[in-house]
C-alpha cells in the first residue's frame, strides 16, 4: 500500500482553524501528519499529488440527499448516488426517507445500513417522523435511533397536524436527534408549481407564496420553543423565513437550519430557461422543468436574504437536497413535472461562486459543508482532519473551468438546469477512508 502525500495545497479545516499551505501525509489510510510544506523529495513509496493552487478540505457532508433507495431505483440508488456524491466531493451523505418502503421501523433502517457498507461514501439514514410519512402517527423513534438513524424527517410532506408535530418535538428532547420539518402549508400552496410573483404571472403558472413556507416555520419554531424540542429547518428559501429563524436563535430555541446551493445561486428567472436572464419574449426554452423544485426558486431579494443568513450564521449549513428524477418525469408539462434538482455533483462549484464574488468567506463556505453538519449529526470525525482516523478529504481546484455534461454525470438522472453550462472550479480528488475514490486529473 503506497503512502499518499497531498503536497502544497491550501489546507482548510474550520474546526481546527487551519487555513494555510500544508502537506498532508496519509499512511495506512489515516492522516498521520499535517505540516508546512518543506520537503521536496519523496521516496518511491510515496504517491505524491501536487496540489499547488488547490484547496484541500475535510470530506464534505451532505445533510440532505435523496438516494431514492429503496423503491425508486430508476432515478438513483445507493451505488450511483454515493458515486455522484464522491464526484461532488462528499464523503458523507444523509439519506432522506421518502423511499418505498419508508424507514419507519427498525428492520427497514437496519436493511439500509447493511446495504450501505458497500456504498462509495458514508450513507447515513434518516427515519421518518410519522409512519408511512402520512403525518398521522409517530414512528417508533427510539427504536429507529437504536437502529442508527441520524435524525427524523417526513421530507416532501408537511405534518399539517400541529399536535403530531408537537409530540415529535417532545420525543426529540430525549433522543436529542433533530426533527427536520418540511415547511409548506398545503392550503396556501394550493397546487402552486413555482414561486408566486411576477414570473409565475407572466408564465401563467400557479404560484407558491412565501407564506406557505414561513407560516409553518413560525409554527414549528413556536412548538420547539414551547416544548424545548430539537428542530431543524431544511431548504430555507424566503427572506421572511430567515428573519423568523434569526429571532428563534436569539431567543434560545434549539434550532438549526439549512439552505441549498440552488436557493443560494438561482432565482425564479431560471424557469425562463435562459441562465437566469429575463427574456424580452418567451422563447421555446421557457418552462424549464429542471428548474422546478420544492421549495421553489425564489426572487432576487430572497436569494440575497439566504446568502446573508448564511453569512450571519442564521443558516447553519448548506445541504444539496439532491433530488434525481428520470427524463420522462421532467419531459412533460411544468405542472406535471416532479420537483427536484440533481445537484450533488455540481454543488460545490455552484456555491464556490459566492466565495469568488466575495459574498461569503471560504471558511464560512467550508464550515457549512463540514464541521456544521458534523455537529448536527454529532460525528465530528466526519467533518474535520483528525489525525489517526480514516482520512476523508476533498481537493478542489478553484480556477479550472468545466462543462456540466449529462452523459458524464455519475447520477442515474440528469435533471439539472445547469446541463450544458460552464462552471468555474471543480472537485478534482475525493479521498474516502484513505483511498482516492474520485480522480479528475
Amino acid at each position, binding site marked *: 500500500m503506497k503512502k499518499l502525500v497531498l503536497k502544497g495545497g491550501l489546507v482548510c479545516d474550520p474546526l481546527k482553524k487551519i487555513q494555510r499551505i500544508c502537506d498532508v501525509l496519509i499512511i495506512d489510510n489515516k492522516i498521520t501528519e499535517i505540516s508546512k510544506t518543506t520537503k521536496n523529495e519523496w521516496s518511491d513509496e510515496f504517491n505524491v499529488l501536487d496540489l499547488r493552487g488547490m484547496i484541500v478540505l475535510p470530506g464534505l457532508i451532505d445533510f440532505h440527499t435523496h438516494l431514492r433507495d429503496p423503491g425508486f431505483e430508476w432515478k438513483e440508488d445507493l451505488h450511483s448516488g454515493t458515486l455522484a456524491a464522491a464526484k461532488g466531493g462528499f464523503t458523507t451523505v444523509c439519506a432522506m426517507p421518502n423511499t418505498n418502503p419508508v424507514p419507519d421501523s427498525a428492520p427497514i433502517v437496519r436493511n439500509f445500513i447493511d446495504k450501505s457498507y458497500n456504498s462509495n461514501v458514508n450513507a447515513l439514514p434518516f427515519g421518518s417522523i410519522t409512519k408511512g410519512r402520512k403525518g398521522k402517527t409517530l414512528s417508533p423513534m427510539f427504536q429507529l435511533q437504536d437502529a442508527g438513524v441520524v435524525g427524523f424527517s417526513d421530507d416532501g410532506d408537511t405534518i399539517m397536524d400541529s399536535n403530531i408535530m408537537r409530540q415529535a418535538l417532545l420525543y426529540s428532547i430525549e433522543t436529542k436527534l433533530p426533527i427536520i420539518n418540511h415547511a409548506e402549508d398545503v392550503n396556501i400552496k*394550493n397546487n402552486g408549481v413555482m414561486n*408566486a*410573483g*411576477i*414570473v*409565475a*404571472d*407572466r*408564465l*401563467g*403558472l*400557479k*404560484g407558491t*407564496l412565501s407564506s406557505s413556507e414561513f407560516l409553518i416555520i413560525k409554527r414549528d419554531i413556536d412548538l420547539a420553543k414551547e416544548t424545548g424540542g430539537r428542530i431543524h429547518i431544511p431548504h430555507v428559501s424566503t427572506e421572511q423565513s430567515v428573519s423568523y429563524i434569526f429571532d428563534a436563535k436569539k431567543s434560545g430555541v434549539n434550532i438549526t437550519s439549512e439552505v441549498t446551493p440552488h436557493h443560494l445561486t438561482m432565482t425564479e428567472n431560471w424557469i425562463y430557461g435562459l441562465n437566469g436572464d*429575463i427574456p*424580452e*419574449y*418567451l*422563447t*421555446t*426554452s*421557457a*418552462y424549464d422543468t429542471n428548474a422546478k423544485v420544492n421549495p421553489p426558486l425564489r*426572487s*432576487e*431579494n430572497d436569494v440575497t436574504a439566504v446568502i446573508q443568513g448564511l453569512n450571519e450564521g442564521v443558516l447553519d449549513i448548506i445541504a444539496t437536497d439532491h433530488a434525481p428524477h428520470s427524463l*420522462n*418525469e421532467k*419531459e*412533460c*408539462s*411544468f*405542472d*406535471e413535472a416532479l420537483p427536484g434538482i440533481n445537484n450533488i455533483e455540481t454543488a460545490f462549484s455552484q456555491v464556490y461562486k459566492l466565495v469568488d464574488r466575495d459574498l461569503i468567506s471560504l471558511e464560512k463556505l467550508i464550515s457549512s459543508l463540514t464541521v456544521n453538519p458534523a455537529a448536527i449529526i454529532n460525528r465530528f470525525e466526519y467533518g474535520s482532519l483528525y489525525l489517526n482516523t480514516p482520512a476523508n478529504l476533498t481537493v478542489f481546484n478553484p480556477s479550472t473551468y468545466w462543462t456540466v455534461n449529462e452523459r458524464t454525470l455519475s447520477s442515474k438522472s440528469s435533471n439539472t438546469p445547469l446541463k450544458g453550462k460552464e462552471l468555474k472550479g471543480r472537485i478534482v480528488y475525493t479521498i474516502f477512508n484513505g483511498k482516492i475514490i474520485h480522480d479528475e486529473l
Partner: protein
Amino acid sequence: MTYDMNLPSNHSNIDFQEGKLNHLLDVDSLSLNSIENLIQSTDLAKKNFVSKTKIPTLKGKTIVNIFFENSTRTRVSFEQAGKLLSADFINVNIPSSSMTKGESILNTIKTIQSIGMDCLIVRHHHSGVPYLIARNVNVPVINAGDSMHAHPTQSLTDIYTIRTELGEIKNKKILIIGDVKHSRVARSNINLLVRLGANITVAAPTTLLPDSWVVQNNTRNLKRVKIISHYLKMESKLAKSDLVMLLRIQKERLDQGCLPDLDEYSKLWGLSKSRFYNLCPKIYIMHPGPVNEGVEIDSEILSLNNSLIDQQVENGVPMRMSVLEFCILK
C-alpha cells in the same frame, strides 16, 4: 393605483419565434410590424371568409389540430380557416381524462409527427405545453390556448375586432373586468393592447388579481396598467370607458375560496341592465366566450348592437387564416 407589468418593450425586429420555424406561442414575440401585417392580411382573408370561397394557398399542406382540452369555437374556427385555405385538416381530441398522469405528451406528438404534418395547433390544460412541443418538433406550432398562460389567436382576433369596429387602438379607454389572474385571454390581450397604446384598466376583486399585482415583491420599469378592485370605482370607470372586456368566471374559482358565490360576483362586478343603461349605454362590449349569462353580463344586453361578441367569433376565422399562412409559408 397602478402596477408595473412584466411586459416586453416594443421590439422592432422580431417576427414570431427564433430559428427558422414560425411558431406562434404567444403575442409577446410579435413585433408591431408583424401585428400590422397580420391585421392587413386578415382584411383580405375576410373577403374569402364572407364569400366562402376557397383559395389554394395551403393546398397539399396538412394541419393537425391537437386538443388536450375541450373547445368548440377555437377548434372549429381553426378548422374552417384551414379549409378555406385548402389545407388538409386532421382533428385529434385527447380529453384530459384519458391522459393518465405520466403518459407522455411528447410520445403522442411524435406519433402524429411521423404520420406527417406541416403545422401543429395545440390546446392544453397546462401552461407552457406548446413551448414543450415546439422544442421537440420540426414544424411550426400554434398555441390555441394553454391554461392560464396565453391565447394568441384570440387576442389577435380581439385586436382586429377593435380596430374594425372602433378604429385606432391608441388611447382607447379599455376596461377589463373579471378573473385576470386565471385568464389566458386577459394575459395576451393586456400584452398586446398595452403595446398598441391603449389605456387599460383592470377591474377585479383582489382575490382574482395576479399575485405580483397584490403582493408586490418585484418591480420592473415597464408598461403600466391601472388596477381597480372596488366595484364602486369600477362603476365610475365604466362611465368613462370606450370598451369593456368581460372575462368568464370559472366555477372552480368558488372552490378555491376566491369568491363566495356567483351571485355576489354578478351583483358586484356583472354588467347588469341598470349599470349599462345608467352608466354606459354607448360602451362597446367584448367577451371571449362562452358567456355565463346573468353572471358576467345580463342576457338582454348581449343582443344589442353594443355587443361585439358575434364579431369576435366571426373575425376569428380570417385572423386564423392569416396566422396559418404566416406560420406555414413565411
